[in-house]
Each structure stands twice: as C-alpha cells, then as structure tokens.
C-alpha cells in the first residue's frame, strides 16, 4: 500500500488532528499546488481556530454542518449548502461570517476580520480546493492469495456427493447418518456405548425438541407404548406441538441477536419487535422451507405475495435486519447509516454463511478472502435500503426526539383520515414547531435562566412545553395508533452503488464499489444486481441457491449442534479460515445435500437426526473412552448438556403446573413509548417486574437489551449484540444463589408442594414419587424415597419450632385474602391491575419526557426489594424445600 503522510507542520501550533484523518490527503495531479498551499496555510487554520468547537468531528455538527470535511461543507447542514463553488456571494458560509443577516451570525458574538473573510471568499472563488484523498493502490486489485484460498478452503467448495460407507455385517446403524459415524468410530478405534434407557431418551428428546420436560402423562404413555415405533410417535407429537417452534425459533432468535430495544448508547425500545419474534416461531412451526425463511428475512418486502396476509408476513420477516443494536445518539448521520449497514452485513453474513464479512469494513479481511471492495459491494445493497426501525439519529436528544414513525413499515392501510383529523394534525404540528422555536430561543440566552411563574427556569418550562406538544402531535400522527406497523426493510427512494470508505471512515469516500456478493462463493447463473433495484432480492436468491454450499452446510451444522451438543464444525458461526474443520466432512455434505433435496425442511431434518441410533445413545462413558475422546467428537455416546436458561425457567413453571402455554399477545415491551429507557427508571422496573411475574414461556418474556430478566441472565442467555449460534454454559455461585433464594424458584417450589399436598389421593410416598416425576422425569428409588421422607420429617420439626410466627402471619394473610376474594369486586382482576400499572408507566414516561436536559435525571440506583415467599405451615415448608432441592439438583439442571 502506497501512502504518503502529509506534513503536519502546516497546522497551526496548539492544534492537533488525528494523523489518520489526513493520512490519505495528497494533491492529485489536477489540483493546483498553489491553491492547496493557500488552503492549508490560510483557510484550514482559520476554520480550525474559529469553527471547530461547534462544527467538527471532534465536537459536533451544530445545525448539521461540519467544516472539517469537504463534503460536509458542500452538502451543508439544515440550512442547505454551506458553499457554492466559485460563488462566494451565494455561499451561506460567507453570509454567516459576514454578520449581515441578524438570524445567522457565525461565529456568534465574534465577527471575523475583513481580511479573514476575504481569505475564505477568495478560496471559494478559486474553487474551494480541498486536498483529495489518496486511494490505496490495492483497494480494488485482486490478490493471488485470495484466489488460492477461494479455491482451497473446504467450506466454500461445492457440496460433494459422498458415498455412504457400506459397513457390511454391522447391525448397529439405523440410518445412513449412523453409517458415516460408525465408519469414523471404526477408524479411530472407538465403539458406541449402549442405547439410552427409555425414560432418559424421552426426557432428552422432549427437551431438545420443545424445551420442556415430558409431563407425567406423556411419560406414562411412552412407557405403555411397547410398539417398535413408540419413539417415532413421540417425535411426531413433539414436532407438531407449538412448543417446537418456541424452542427452535429461539435458536434462530439467538442467531438473529433478537432484542426489543437498541441497547448501546441510548436504550430506545422497539415496541414492534415482537412481530418478528412471532414470525420466527410460526415459521418453524409451519416448517417453512429454510430457503424461503431466509429469502423472506432478507427481502420479504420484495417477494411476490398471493394474499394480504402473506405480504404482511413477509414484511415482518425483514425485521431480522432492523432489530439490531443501534446507536441513535450517533451525531453524524453518515456514520449512523454506515454503522447500521455494518451491523446488517455482520448479521446476514455470520448467520446464514458463517463468515465474518464485517472484518473487511476497514481493511481487506486478514484471514478470509473478503476484500474491502466486496464489503462495499454488499454495503451498496443495504445503502439502497431503508432500515425501518422507527428511529432516527439525533445528537443529545430527549423525549420522543429519536422516534421517526415514517421509518416503520405500515402493515394495515391506516384508516382514512377525514379532513377534521387532518386539520387537527396540522394544528398540532404547528403548535409543536412553535414551541420548539420558543425553546431554542431561550436555550442559550440569559432569559432562559429567569424564573417562570411556577418558579422553574423559563428554559426548562419551554422545553417541557415543546416535549408535551411534540408528544401530542406524535400520538395523533403515529401510524402505530391507527393500525399495525412493523420493523423491517424497504428499498430506499434512491438506489445505487456506494463508495468504498477509506479505512472504514464513513466520510472518507473512495471509489464506487459495484453492488454484488462475496466472491468466495460464485456459481454459474448466479443473480446480478439490477441498476434500478437495491439488490436485496438478488442477495436473498444468491444466499439460498442450492448451488451456494455455505447456506445448507451452515444450517445443517447448527441443527446438529443443538441435538448432539456440538456441531460437526464446532465453530458454528465461523466456517472461515480461523474456524474449525468438520469432524465428518462427508457426513456434513451428505446432510446438506439431503436437506436441500428434501425441500429445505427443518422439521424433517430434526426428525431424521433424533431417530438415528447415534442420537439415542446413552451418555455413559468409561475413563478409557473419556481419555481417548473427551469431547466426544466422534459421537460414541450422547453428550450430556446443561439446560438452557429458558428450559430451566419453563421446566420450573411446568413442574408447578402453572406454565401458561398460550402465546401472549405482543410483548410487554409493546406498551413502551419510544423514549430512552434508564435502568433505574420506573419503566425499566415495570419490564423487570413483568418478566418476573410472567408465567408464559420464556421466549415471550420482554427482552430489552441490558434489561434481560434475571431468570435468563443468570444462566448464560444469548448475547443480544452479536450472532450467537452457541451459548456459553457456565457454573457459577450466582446460579446457586438464584436457585436458593430467588422468589421465582421459591414461589414455584411452593406451588408444586401445595399442589402435591392438596391432592388427597396421594400419600407421602406417592407424593415424593410425583415430585421426582415432575422435576427430573423419573420415579425415585426406594432409598431416595426414604431419604426424602427422613428429610421432610426433620425439616418439618425444625421449621415448626423456628418459624411458628411466620406461619401464623401467613395464615392470617390468607384468611384476609379469602375474605377479600369473596367480595364481588373487580379490583383483583389481573387485567385491571395491568391497566393500572400501564397508567403508571405512561405517567412515568411522560415525566421522563419532560426533563429539560435528558441526562439531568436522578442518577442513583433505585431501591430494590426482594419478594418474600413464605409457607403457611411447617409441612408445606418442608415439601417446598424438598421440591426446591430437586430443582437445584444437577439431575434437574442437566439432560443426559
């Protein structure tokens, strides 16, 4: 790379600029050296000295204007172009510094000297010359090393059609998949262990497919079914249950880094993100072909639709690329746009292809053959796309400043507005605009400090008025108030290729990169991007072509990972040079081929995998086997795994018999206005409480970034900032503290105990058996029953004495509650309760919107109280404790 560093000596003393900013500055042949010298010696220092505090990347772009960037001046800010090349008299910049217009005097209170004004006028007259960026020579050159890697690296070669190992005489394999595995086991000198026992297998397959434990009735039915296809019956039942989509949809939501808020610098809620969540779950339940699933998420808005419903569904699918982490507080719009595009490129390339294309944003990829130029080929596609997340970037915004309802997808035609409503809206807008002007006048003036009649500074009062009127206008004009809206994508009004950004700096424009796809996968007949379209549809087609070997390999491997504990390629999100190589390359290709041939059906893939002999192996192991292959890479047994956060929570609710299997409408987060969330605010507390009190499946809990429910956070919930194909599985004391003391665990243990005790058909022995069955999915041995009985007796006797007062108090409360419940009142109705709380929420958000400086709020932590869960008597307490012990046990926390 040929680069020449400009001498920094031309800059005035006392001023330093990051060298990288000008690293590429160099006079190109057409630029007059004398004019350049004039710029560097006279013009730039003048701008630096007088304008940079308000109009540069190191500070801000007041009024949208930057003077440290040629494009910044040419494009100008809110008032339009700052300069017209060759015409100083028409240039806003000259007007502003001349102080001839009372409304536009820059710098304020400090008119430049006539000599300085002449310098800038002269410069504009002479063409406003600015040193050109140097484009590194190799920016668009091809690299032999890249060519070699494209030809050699295993993952981007076409799928092979491997032969199934014959293995004559072996009775062990049930499926060709088993034959591939056994052949490899033979090679390495390992033999598969015995099959798992039926109950273990039932618990395993039920959790794996639905994220739920088998119910006692399901256990009984399976044990009673002695037919040879008993397992198939179970698997088909599980695949047909809605719980399948809730479990496997969640796997995809991990990959889609699903979150219901922006996270990042300002945490703004995404009240409509849940539509995408439901779309994913439904797609899995409908067994939407995976290629179609991907096409819809990348370009659903551009696909043909047979019905209104289908069109709606496909639009919602594009939420995939709109729900990422966003920094709405990014003050420079071009950076906001390029950062979001980067997030989209990272997500789509890692999730579907398991390559890290975003590494090429600033420089050619260090390991994989992805050039910066290719990155911007993809970027052009997303640059031609509107990222409809309902948000805009804003510097130092508060209240509803970040909300941009025009940047949402409208799903249902908004009800026709009559003239009266339109007039109302226009009036509200005028009022809000006037209030804004009034506030802006007071903002930086001494008058703003004067006290209004209510004793508050006038500035603050004006800001509050503006916020209130802005909120009124928003609520009148918000499409979400009229009908259904969603987050997602649409083609931008203007489509076209975009420039390579030198070293990834959004403002440093290099040559144009023609829109296209990554070269590491190229095949005959692949689509190309039409000039008048964004190219997203073609990207979707390229991704899902049967000739694209990555897409099918990656999803087959993800599926394997979820069922066998680790992928055939362990690095499930990285099939690049630094990723793992497949343990069974032939099997991987075999599965990918079969998957595509079978119509990209995930359900049939899952079905086939769990019915293999290999999946049904026991988890037993000898020390010898463990020494040979501790990680079970060759699949000689079934690897035990810890339940994931959602499974643990759902299983506790299921054991207590209180799991609500219906899908809640929307999300609690849907109630939030698009106003910054603070972790110590009332609205955040409301989200936390909603998560804590919910009995719905965990996939439906509010998942605002940085406000993940404790029940999930403690057990390694997926990172919501990045594609996560494989979660951590840690064992730390906070988990034990959670299992010992958290109200959720204690409440459900108590509920389980109360149900057991209320059942008069049971005696203590059968109650213990039932407790084991609902928690760990098996009946206890006689020794275990004895141990439990002894425990109950001892616990009850100690608790009876020690906790007598507590029990009396609980019983008193229960009686009072009973009396209350017998009154014909509606105050206890949950719906009303929620409405009441929502009212509180609206009030809290309103209050947050009324703060003059959005950062000037109560900064200390809120006081947190822990809910006490207490039993009514010693016997109940003992049983609750027994159940809680079972929920804390390794047997509950792991599937084998």
């Amino acid at each position, binding site marked *: 790379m040929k680069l020449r560093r400009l001498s920094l000596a031309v800059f005035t003393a006392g001023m330093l600029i990051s060298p990288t900013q000008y690293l590429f500055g160099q006079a190109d042949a057409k630029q007059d050296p004398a004019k350049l010298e004039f710029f560097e010696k006279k013009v730039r220092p003048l701008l630096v000295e007088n304008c940079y505090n308000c109009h540069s990347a190191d500070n801000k772009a007041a009024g949208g204007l930057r003077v440290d960037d040629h494009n910044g001046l040419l494009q100008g800010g809110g008032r339009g172009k700052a300069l017209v090349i060759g015409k100083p008299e028409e240039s806003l910049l000259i007007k502003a510094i001349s102080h001839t217009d009372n409304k536009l005097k820059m*710098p304020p209170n400090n008119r430049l000297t006539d000599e300085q004004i002449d310098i800038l006028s002269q410069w504009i007259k002479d063409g406003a010359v600015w040193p050109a960026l140097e484009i590194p020579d190799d920016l668009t050159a091809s690299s032999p090393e890249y060519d070699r890697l494209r030809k050699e690296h295993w993952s981007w070669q076409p799928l092979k059609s491997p032969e199934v190992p014959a293995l004559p005489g072996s009775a062990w394999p049930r499926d060709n998949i088993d034959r591939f595995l056994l052949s490899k086991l033979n090679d390495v000198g390992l033999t598969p262990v015995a099959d798992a026992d039926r109950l273990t297998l039932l618990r395993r397959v039920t959790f794996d497919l639905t994220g739920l434990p088998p119910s006692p009735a399901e256990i009984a039915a399976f044990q009673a079914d002695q037919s040879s296809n008993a397992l198939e019956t179970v698997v088909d039942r599980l695949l047909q249950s809605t719980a399948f989509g809730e479990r496997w949809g969640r796997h995809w939501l991990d990959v889609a880094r699903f979150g219901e808020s922006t996270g990042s*610098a300002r945490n703004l809620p995404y009240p409509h993100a849940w539509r995408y969540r439901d779309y994913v779950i439904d797609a899995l339940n409908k067994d939407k072909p995976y290629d179609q699933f991907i096409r819809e998420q990348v370009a659903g808005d551009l696909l043909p639709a047979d019905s209104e419903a289908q069109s709606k569904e496909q639009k919602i699918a594009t939420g995939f690329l709109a729900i990422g982490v966003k920094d709405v*507080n990014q003050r420079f719009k071009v950076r906001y746009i390029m950062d979001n595009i980067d997030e989209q490129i990272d997500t789509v390339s890692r999730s579907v292809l398991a390559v890290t294309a975003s590494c090429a944003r600033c420089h050619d990829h260090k390991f994989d053959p992805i050039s910066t130029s290719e990155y911007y080929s993809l970027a052009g596609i997303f640059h031609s796309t509107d990222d409809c997340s309902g948000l805009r970037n804003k510097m130092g915004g508060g209240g509803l400043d970040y909300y941009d309802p025009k940047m949402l997808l409208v799903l249902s035609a908004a009800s026709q507005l009559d003239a009266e409503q339109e007039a109302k809206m226009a009036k509200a807008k005028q009022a809000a605009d006037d209030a804004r002007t009034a506030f802006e006048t007071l903002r930086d003036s001494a008058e703003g400090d004067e006290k209004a009649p209510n004793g508050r500074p006038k500035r603050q009062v004006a800001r509050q008025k503006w916020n209130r009127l802005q909120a009124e206008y928003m609520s009148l004009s918000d499409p979400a108030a009229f009908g259904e809206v969603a987050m997602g994508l649409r083609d931008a009004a203007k489509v076209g290729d975009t420039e390579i950004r030198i070293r990834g700096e959004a403002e440093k424009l290099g040559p144009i990169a023609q829109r296209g796809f990554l070269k590491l996968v190229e095949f005959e007949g692949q689509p190309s991007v039409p000039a008048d379209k964004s190219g997203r549809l073609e990207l979707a087609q390229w991704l899902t072509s049967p000739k694209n070997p990555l897409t099918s390999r990656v999803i087959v491997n993800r599926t394997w990972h979820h069922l066998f504990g680790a992928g055939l390629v362990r690095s499930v999100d990285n099939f690049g040079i630094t990723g793992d190589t497949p343990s069974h390359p032939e099997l991987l290709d075999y599965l990918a081929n079969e998957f595509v041939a079978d119509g990209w059906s995930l359900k049939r893939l899952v079905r086939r995998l769990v019915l293999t002999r290999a999946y049904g192996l026991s988890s037993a192991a000898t020390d010898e086997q463990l020494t040979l292959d501790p990680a079970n890479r060759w699949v000689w047994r079934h690897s035990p795994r810890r339940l994931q956060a959602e499974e643990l929570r759902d299983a506790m609710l299921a054991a207590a018999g209180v799991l609500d299997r219906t899908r809640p409408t929307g999300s609690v987060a849907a109630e939030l206005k698009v106003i910054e969330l603070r972790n110590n605010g009332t609205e955040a507390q409301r989200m936390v409480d909603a998560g804590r009190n919910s009995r719905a499946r965990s996939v439906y809990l509010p998942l605002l970034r940085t406000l993940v429910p404790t029940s999930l956070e403690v057990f390694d919930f997926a990172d919501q*900032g*990045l594609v996560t194909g494989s979660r951590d599985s840690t064992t730390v004391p906070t988990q034990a503290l959670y299992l010992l003391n958290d109200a959720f665990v204690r409440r459900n243990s108590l509920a389980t105990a109360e149900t057991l005790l209320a059942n008069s058909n049971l005696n203590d022995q059968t109650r213990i058996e039932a407790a084991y069955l609902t928690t760990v999915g098996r009946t206890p041995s006689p020794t275990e029953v004895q141990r439990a009985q002894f425990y109950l007796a001892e616990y009850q006797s100690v608790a009876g004495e020690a906790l007598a007062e507590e029990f009396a108090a609980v019983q008193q409360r229960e009686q009072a509650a009973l009396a209350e419940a017998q009154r014909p009142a509606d105050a206890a109705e949950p719906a009303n309760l929620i409405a009441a709380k929502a009212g509180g929420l609206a009030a809290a958000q309103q209050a947050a919107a009324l703060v003059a400086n959005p950062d000037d709020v109560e900064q200390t932590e809120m006081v947190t109280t822990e809910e006490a869960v207490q039993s009514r008597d010693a016997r109940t307490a003992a049983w609750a404790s027994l159940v809680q012990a079972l929920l804390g046990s390794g047997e509950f926390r792991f599937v084998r």
Partner: protein
Amino acid sequence: MFNDQVSDSAFSRRKALQAAGTGFGYLALAGMLGLQNKPARAASVTAPLAPKPQQLPAKAKRIIFLFMEGAMSPVDTFEYKAKLQDNDGKPGPGGGKLVASKFKFQQHGQSGTPVSELYPNVAQHVDKLCFIRGLHTDTPAHPQAVIQLHTGARVASLTRPSMGSWLLYGLGTENQDLPGYITINPSPNFGGAVNYGSAFLPAHFQGTRINDSGFLPNLKPQVLSPLQRKQIDLVQDMNRDLRAVPGAPSELDGVIESYELAFRMQGQVPDLLDISKEPQSVLDAYGVKPGPAGSFARQCILARRLSEAGVRFVQIRQGGWDHHNNLHKGLIANSAATDQPTAALLADLEQRGLLEDTLVLFGSEFGRLPTAQGVDGRDHNITGYPMWMAGAGVKKGFSYGATDEYGTHAVEGRMHTMDLHATLLALMGLDHEALTYRYAGRDFRLTDVAGNVVREIMA
C-alpha cells in the same frame, strides 16, 4: 467469619480475609469433596475465576476506579491555565469566548501541583497522585465516550467486554467467596450494563452491580441458615449420586462447589457490604451521611472494604458533571460530594497498606472546553483532558503530558483511551497485546488494534 474489628496489623487482617476464600476454606472444601484426587479436572471445571499469575511483573493487584460521569471541567479543578485566567472574555481557539475559572488555584505539596479550591482535601494528597494530562478520545458525546472508556469499543453499537471483565479474564480474582468485579451505582444509561458486561466473554467475567447501600440480589438467605444448610446437604447428596454414574456431566463438580461458595457468600458478603460495621471515626472521615449527598462517601467506603477483601476491580461513580449550564453551582455541589470521600479513601488505603498494591484511578469520559457555552456553562472537549492515578505501580507527585496553554488540545504526552487501557493492563501485569480471546474466528483485545503502554508514569 468476617471480623470488623481493626486489628493491630491491617495487613494481616486483609490476608485473613482473603484466606477465607482462597486459603484454608478452599482447601478444606476441596478435601471434603475429594477434588484433590483429580486436580486437573477440578481446576478447569470449578474455578474459572481462580487467581492467575500476572504475565509481567507488576505491583498492582487491584483497581478502584472513581468515575466522574458527565465530564468534569478540568480548568476548574485540576488543570491550572494561567493564560486562560489572563484572557477571560477573549476569543478562544476553535471559536467561542474564553472563560477563566472562577475558582482559585493554589500549589500544594512538595510537588507544587496546583489544585483548585474545589478540592481542598484531595489537594492534601497531591504528592501521592500521578496525573496524566494529555488524554484524548474519539467521540464527543457521553454515551459513546463512556462506552469506549469502559469497553474500548470505538463504535458504541459494537458490544465488547468491559475493562473489568478483561482483568478478571486475565487475572482471576483473589477471593473466591466474592464477585471479582463489582460496580457500585453504575450509569443507568449511557450504555448501562454494557459498561460492566462481559459481551462474548463467559458470563462469570461480568461485573456485579450493587447500589450505593450495598444491595446484591439473591444474597439474603430466604430461610433460616440451619434449614437452608439441610436443603443444600440434600442437593449435594443428590449431586454426588449423579456424579457416581459413569459419564455424568463433567460440570457436576462445579455445581457442587458453586453451592458451597454461594452458602459462604451469604454468610460473609452481607457483612462486608454493611458499612455500619465501620467505626464512627471512619464514617466521619469519609463524611458519610444519608441520602443522595452521601452516596459517593458510602461508595468510597464500600470500595475500600471490597478491595481489602480482594475484589479485583471496583468501580464507583459520581454523576452530574455535565455542566452545559449551571457550571458554577454544579461544580461546587459535585466537588463537595466527592472531595472529602476521595481524600479519605486515599488516606485509608495508605494507612492500611493497601495503596501498595491497589491502583486508584479518578476521572471522566472526557473534559470540557475553556470557552463559554451559554451564560454559565462549558461544552464537551475530547481533544485534551486529565485523569489521575494513585497507588500501586505509578509515580508519586508526578505529571505526565499536557494540554495547550488554554487547556483545549493535548500537546504533550498524548494518550488515547486505548493507551490508557494498555497502560492500566500493564500496571496490572498484563500485556494488552497478549490478552486475547478468540470469538467467532477472531482474536479480540481490549485495545483492538491500538494501544501504547506509557511507561513514563510507572514507578
């Protein structure tokens, strides 16, 4: 187990505290569980936070970071600029009108370092301090700069592990009965939990958040201790049954140990977080009082107690420095809240011998301009601002780097946020280029592809 009496030797008291976690307690437990029979497995599974040796020789074993969120004004506190004082009201560099500080500066200590009248107590310790005065960062907005200061991420929407998580990942922690990384009263916005999150590092490296009265969720036993012990014994019986099964989950040792740790934490941590255990004289020295005005003092005492007990990284926070307006009164209020507790913390750490191996860091995400904003305010400045350090590994009564004559741009000893991170890691005995974590095919670092260690400040 926790003894709140100040013993005759503060040093031995600290040792005893830490031993509760890593010394006898741990060995006894290990013996009880038979872990010693299979040491290799036990080490990998059960103790991800066990102390690890430093990569480089270094004195600092732990850090206390006093974070002044919102950007305190340097020229009114720790940066004396004579030329600014002489040119009040005149046009300043970059546009705008210079505003001299309304607060008087005076030289202090043998080093003769000027400190403004807003920090009379800290000024008494100025010969312990090591100023870095040439800092600069990338983004002139709080959220992005706060996130960059805490995680190194230049683009705020890239979620990266926080500095404390990297330290924990690199060094483990001294006391296994306590979280190794505690953040008190962290920012409720500006990235919120991102600032103490572990991102793609395993979750046990993330910071534990407590409020300024020391509340930690799920720490309080919900039943009487003997009853809870019974329950734990039953859980452990079940776990040992399962462990006896061939091919049982290898994490079971970890499950068993985590219960014992949790039980011990319940016993010790609440006492540790209860500052009322301190003698009145100590509370008075820090200026502890109820309500928001006393928040920082409470945080300072908590920070000392936690560091003393071996927590690797403790962060505390004072917000409200964003003085676009109300600069004068705002500075008075905020310095009043922070001066005495900060000075008391330095004195307390020194008196207990903790300053020998604890590094204190004090400062904001960026600075403020010497020019005026509105009637009584100063705008953000990312091009030159100071922080100070004290304690383990850094020079005393020393200044490194400088801004220009008005305090706008760093002109000497320039240190980017990445350089600060590289230097902090080096002070803790870690090589910022070698402390990497492979995730999704890439080796990540706190300092990404940048960072220079500034050796000039090292003692």
